[in-house]
């Protein structure tokens, strides 16, 4: 992906990065953290104390479970410099397959395992095209997005949906602990683990190195192909899990499940400091805050009775502001 944007830019951009305190105050996580606080303050002012009540957070939380999990995994693909646009359709097909297997009377674990394996298979096709043949990631995964959506529509059949309600699974997914949805807390946990892996482990450093400057990474003995393949598989896996959870939340899978999710997730991740065009930047923590901030904005609009279309206007403006900020911080300038 570096090929579109990056000219000869030193790895790591022009960030004055070696002072941890300064990085903490001026880095991308700081600006999304600040945005997040602004959203909470705006919520308190416009909606009132109800905004931070357990009930309202549960409503918000239930909506962001799937985006959080999908974002945590596909963030690794962004870090490795291979954007995966097929995640929305991958969520759709995973949800449809899982529902289909349940209607066939399969046990939950088997339905889930086979669904995830099939998703990994599609992820492998992405990897073969992008890593093996050198296809452009945006265009190739756009093709996968279309193809998977088509298969999902075919699976959904004439009713446009598969109804597969499993009492146990529905109960599990929609369970609450401490007044908050269990899976929301799990999704936060997944994001935190992803953040630790991305920033504190050798694997994470390799991924970011490959995304930041693949030549330097290759010279340092990191297998660029292996890292990118793994990142694309991870992204497909995360979307597969997201689809299964979606099915659990709703008790059914529709042909349109997950439609457009990729743009919502990536817009929020970019607001959170990732770049879809340049690997090596971003942090799962910032990504999660980006998703929560967008969910917060959308909740404020819901509660104040403003048209939901304003969410997309605000998301678009935040996105432009975030990439502009990233550029001013030393990211790529176009031209």
């Amino acid at each position, binding site marked *: *992906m*570096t*090929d*579109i*944007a*990056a*000219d000869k830019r030193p790895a790591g951009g022009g960030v004055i990065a070696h002072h941890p305190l300064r990085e903490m105050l001026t880095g991308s996580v700081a600006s999304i953290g600040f945005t997040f606080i602004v959203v909470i303050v705006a919520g308190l002012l416009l909606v009132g104390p109800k905004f931070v009540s357990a009930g309202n957070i549960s409503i918000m939380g239930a909506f962001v479970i799937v985006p959080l999990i999908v974002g945590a995994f596909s963030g690794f693909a962004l870090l490795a*410099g291979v954007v995966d646009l097929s995640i929305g359709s991958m969520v759709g097909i995973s949800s449809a397959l899982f529902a289909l297997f349940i209607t066939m009377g399969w046990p939950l674990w088997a339905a889930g395992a086979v669904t995830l394996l099939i998703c990994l298979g599609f992820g492998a*096709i992405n990897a*073969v*095209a*992008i890593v*093996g*043949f*050198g*296809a*452009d990631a*945006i*265009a*190739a995964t*756009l*093709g*996968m*997005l*279309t*193809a*998977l*959506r*088509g*298969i999902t*529509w*075919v699976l959904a059949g004439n009713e446009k949906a598969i109804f597969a309600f499993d009492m146990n699974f529905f109960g599990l997914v929609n369970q609450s602990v401490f007044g908050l949805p269990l899976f929301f807390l799990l999704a936060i946990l997944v994001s935190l683990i992803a953040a630790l892996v991305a920033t504190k482990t050798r694997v994470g450093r390799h991924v970011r190195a490959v995304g930041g*400057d*693949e*030549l330097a990474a290759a010279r340092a003995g990191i297998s660029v192909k292996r890292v990118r393949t793994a990142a694309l598989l991870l992204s497909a896996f995360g979307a597969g899990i997201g689809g299964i959870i979606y099915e659990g939340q709703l008790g059914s899978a529709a*042909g349109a499940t997950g439609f457009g999710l990729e*743009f919502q997730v990536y*817009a929020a991740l*970019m607001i959170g400091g990732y770049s*879809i*065009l340049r690997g090596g930047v971003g942090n799962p923590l910032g990504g999660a805050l980006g998703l929560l901030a967008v969910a917060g904005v959308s909740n404020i609009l819901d509660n104040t009775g403003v*048209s939901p*279309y*304003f*969410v*997309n*206007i605000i*998301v*678009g*403006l935040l*996105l*432009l502001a975030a*990439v*502009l900020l990233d*550029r001013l911080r030393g990211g*790529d*300038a*176009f*031209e």
Partner: protein
Amino acid sequence: MSLDRAMDRTPSRALLLGVRLHGWGTGLTLLAVWLLLIAATGFYRPDFFTHQTVLAIAFTMSIVGVMAIGQGIVANSGGFIDLSQPAGLILSSLVAVRLSETGLPFVLVVVGTVLTGMVWGGVNATIIVLAKLNPVIVTLATNFIGLATLYLVFQLAQVPIGSAIYDFGRANLLGLPAIWWPMLALVLLVGLLMRSTRYGRRITAVGGNRAAAAARGISLKKTRFGTFIAAGGFVGFAAILFASSAGPFNPGSANTLQLNIIAAVILAGISLRGGQGNFWMLLLSVGFLSTIPTSLVFFGLSSDTQTIFQGAILIIAVAIDGYRIRRGAR
């Protein structure tokens, strides 16, 4: 990939010849695949060969073709992809509807609609050039903002029945839809202009190698403005064809077109990495992609399956494109 690109910057004479040949190779391959599809469908269902089929394919070709010219110019100039085409198309179509409701003559409706598209392209270009942001992200954001705003403005719109633009969308000329002919003319014209005028060659030069183009004294800013405004103009013109023939539309009506357009551009050999491509090939790629839905119906497959085929074709096409660039660079 940046390795490939770095090497792309110094194309040898042999490579240039290869690119030239590969342009025609792409054309021959496309033509062969297209003819194969037509022959297979006709063999399976001889009633495929009817005037009705030709009309259906030509209708689909018209709008996708004109928008693909715009997308192709953006890609060719190194702008990668314009993701805001759906918003631009719907905005211009809405203007076309409102203008024709006031009873303006057809020519003025066309002028107003095309200008709207150019303004939309100009807005994109302004953000891209002034803020120095990547076109993909800028157009992703403006598409978000544009479509959401359009939803606030209208839910459903249609050109007045019986108006000139309405009749234009339903008229036939020499056995083909009237809206098909302007598409043909524009593809042929742009293909010629891109190849044989200074402006066309400048666009390709910027797309091929920004730094070298700038060193040769080509203004990157002007080129960027020019390409996005021109691309917007084609979206505006496509809006005339869309509004005249699509019936009632809502702000989401153009979302399904986007992928077809990008696929058509890539299949035509107009690399998303910029700097190469023959616009005449768009006739073949758009024709091929527009035949798929009709063929599948004749094979008794649901229209949902067409997206599977289109997606698979796109993956294969970009894989081949990537492989060719990689091999060419070595």
